[in-house]
């Protein structure tokens, strides 16, 4: 265990930040350009996990466990969100036979 921590600390922090930024950007772009609700959903998960990665990296870097504990909270939250979100998507599919978010444009002036 000691070795693992040291090995992780061996990786420079910049690499983690860069990787997280890339994953987060992929998530944002996915949300912006995709029309399938499930894919948008997955992109959101990507963004969440990019943040998780960053939190763990900083946690190790500072030798402080609270960052990792926070990650558990985010995971629990993400799980709950997925449960509700998927249920909504299922209902949307049942009503419109599609998961295209552009069809759902009834809520407007």
């Amino acid at each position, binding site marked *: 265990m000691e070795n693992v921590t040291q090995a992780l600390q061996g990786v420079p922090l910049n690499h983690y930040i860069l990787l997280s930024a890339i994953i987060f950007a992929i998530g944002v772009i996915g949300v*912006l350009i995709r029309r399938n609700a499930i894919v948008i959903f997955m992109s959101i998960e990507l963004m969440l996990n990019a943040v998780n990665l960053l939190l763990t990296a900083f946690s190790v870097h500072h030798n402080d466990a609270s960052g990792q504990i926070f990650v558990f909270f985010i995971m629990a939250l993400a799980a709950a969100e997925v449960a509700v979100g998927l249920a909504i998507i299922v209902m949307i599919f049942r009503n419109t036979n599609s998961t295209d978010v552009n069809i759902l*444009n*009834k809520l407007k002036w």
Partner: protein
Amino acid sequence: MINLVWLVPLFPLIGFLINGLGRNTLSKSVIGLTGCLAVLASFIVSLGIFIELNASNTKSFIVPLFDWISAGTVKIPFSFMVDPLSALMLLIVTGIGFLIHLYSTGYMSHDAGFGKFFSYLNLFIFFMLLLVLGSNYVIMFIGWEGVGLCSYLLIGFWYTNSSYASAAKKAFIMNRIGDLGFLIAVFLIFTTFNSVEFAVIFPQAASMLAGDRALIIITSLLFVGAIGKSAQLPLFTWLPDAMAGPTPVSALIHAATMVTAGIYMIARSNILFTLAPQTLHVIAIVGLATLLLAATIAVTQNDIKKVLAYSTVSQLGYMFLGLGVGAYTGAFFHVITHAFFKALLFLGAGSVIHAMSNEQDMRNMGGLKKKLPVTFLTMMIGTIAIAGLPPFSGFFSKDEILAHVYEHNQLFWVLGVIGAVFTSFYMFRMMFLTFNGSFRGTTAQEHHLHESPSSMTIPLIVLAVLSVIGGFIGIPEIFGGGHWLQNFLSPVFAVSAGKMPHLTLDHSTEFILMAVSVAGALGAMLFAYQKYVKKGEVPAEDRIERGTLARLSYNKYYIDEIYASLITRPLDSLSGFFHKVVDKKGIDGLVNGFGKGAIEASKSFRLLQSGMVGFYIFMMVFGIVALLVYSMYKI
């Protein structure tokens, strides 16, 4: 018994609650019984208090009930004051109140609002008793406002008639003007004496110098209050209009009790007024002007209740004249006797109106003597009493006032006697027009004519007896009387009496003064007899042109019209301006403008709400990035 004084206002309050809550469910006999018994119980307790007070050596009792307002240095207890003045007033209010309740059971028996009427009447008695009993100006003010409210409710009792409803509003608004004066006076009293308790203020005031500026301002404002409530110039026009109410109300509120509240209040605060001689002078002049004005109006009125209403205004003028010359006992004496004979006259008029199927115009009456013997006899007694013919009650009280006036200012006395002559004339004119000659109404009315039931005639008889003997409580020395009333009230007016010059008329002068006023009254009576019985004249129809003086008097000196053009109409147009321009255009325009502006502005912005989720997310991301850039570079 004195410690039980709180029972006196409690009974009518209970009566009010029972009748007010059960006005639709209780039967008329239960309502009438509750209303009468409540006041009768108060009367019995008042009688006990009076007897105990008369026997007691201490003449002023304060009965505390509870601490009412207590904030810092302000302490206003809810307590009652029993002294000769309030004890006598209690007897008048509850005694005459009971008779009028009894009368109302007959008079109002056909009215749909029977329960409502009795609950209002009981409420009025309650407030009047608070006014009389309060041991400080604040409790007096509660009663003062309360009787004004009841007066409003009862004038507008038949509120479906819009002219009655506006008469009620007129009375209420005119009273409000006076009440403002009273209220400011109470504030000033508090700042000057640091208390509103009578027992604290009066000893303090007694040590002040006569003509003290604070006292003059306070008394002037108190007098403004009295002007409103007791219908003096220039606020008297509400009282004649108040005759819109049922006749028992006119008798109780607008003749016997409420309108004398102003006199009671001044008599109660007599030491303040004694030390403000300038205010007293103004009071005397206002009283004199009112009595002459009202008396000259009364001589041409044809509505039986209007004659009595102007007569009331005029008699109130006498009381103020008496107060103004420092004859507090005389003024209060006149309050008592006036309560007897004016209540009697109003109830008699009510009996006539009842018999005449709600006809009030004397030109359509005449010859009722045979048909209404009891009413005729009792009203005749009342008329003789008010005309001031000895030995009826009005003679003693009026001549006591006039004797004091003579000593104070002889010109005032001459004018006062002229007023008395007018009084005698218009009262006998009313009697002769109503009861003598031949019947001038319709045959349907003639067929319906009947003497009133005994519930109405008994109060008339009792009041007639009181009108005859009421004066004997104050027989002056020259008739060998001890003037019981003066002795009884002397504790109340003792301090004032010490600061005023004493009556120094010798007996022969006093006899001459009396003889002159009695002769004047008799002459006026004979003149009225000549004119209306011997010649059988009947006042002209409205459309016939009258002489200048008669027209002025008949149209009440156009005072209502003058008020309308000087005050009401300018106020109307001012409020019209505020309504149409300031409110509608200004305030409404501003508020509506905000709404319209928001709608116009959002017309283009709301297109952003396109319903496209992608667009929303894009805008969100764009916003986040913008914030990020902003925070990084602090653009």
